[in-house]
């Protein structure tokens, strides 16, 4: 039987694609409001700090960061191939590494709240 690692990289991609489809636009909208000078109440330092202090929120944020970065990395990998870049192993290694590093950094910062 052929052994494939495709489900391992594809599973988080599908989960991340669904998650980002549901939540990313509204999250971008929140920071867009902040960028326009109408920051929502949640983005005030005290409130956001307290919000992220709860372990359920920490886990959720880490999960959102991981799935968002992983699905973006996977899609970018396929896009590189579509655009004629055939060094797939190198591209995949770099992109997945960036996704994991970003997740690792987010987890590190989350532990400080």
């Amino acid at each position, binding site marked *: 039987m052929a052994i494939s690692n495709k489900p391992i990289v594809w599973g988080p991609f599908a989960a991340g694609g669904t998650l980002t489809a*549901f939540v*990313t*636009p*509204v999250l971008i909208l*929140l920071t867009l409001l902040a960028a326009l000078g109408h920051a929502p109440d949640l983005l005030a330092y005290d409130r*956001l700090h307290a919000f992220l202090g709860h372990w359920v929120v920490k886990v959720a944020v880490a999960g959102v960061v991981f799935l968002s*970065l992983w699905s*973006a990395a996977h899609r970018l990998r396929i*896009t590189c191939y579509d655009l004629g870049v055939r060094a797939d192993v190198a591209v995949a290694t770099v992109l997945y590494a960036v996704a994991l590093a970003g997740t690792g950094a987010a987890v590190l910062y989350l532990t400080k709240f």
Partner: protein
Amino acid sequence: MAEEVNRKPYVRPITSEWIVRHPRYLRYMVREFSCLFIGGWTLLMVWGLKQLAEGPVAWAAFLECIKSPASVVFHLVALGFAAYHSYTWFNLAPKAMPLQIGDDFVPEAAIAGAHFAVWAVLTAAVLYLAGAF
């Protein structure tokens, strides 16, 4: 004796010209490029987490930084790409997970429509809970 080889193998040229050959291909690439903005915005938020962890002064600097014109433009473009990703993803949902009840398949429009409805409710709920209005 080895045969004299004078082959001229066909090497398929790899180009990205195909993207503009048909509007459908262009829409596909626009969808795929959404990953740059979703990924880029997420990395921006990781930096925001770092600033928040450092304290109120660093967080205020972050909020000030995202008010720059370049950041506003990035947010607007990213919002457009993210929404397009949602639109394409929900329209694909009936193909990815067709739902059969009894002998009949649930109409594709019903499955996609349910996703859009949940999306709308979720978006309104997040905006309300975050105190955006």
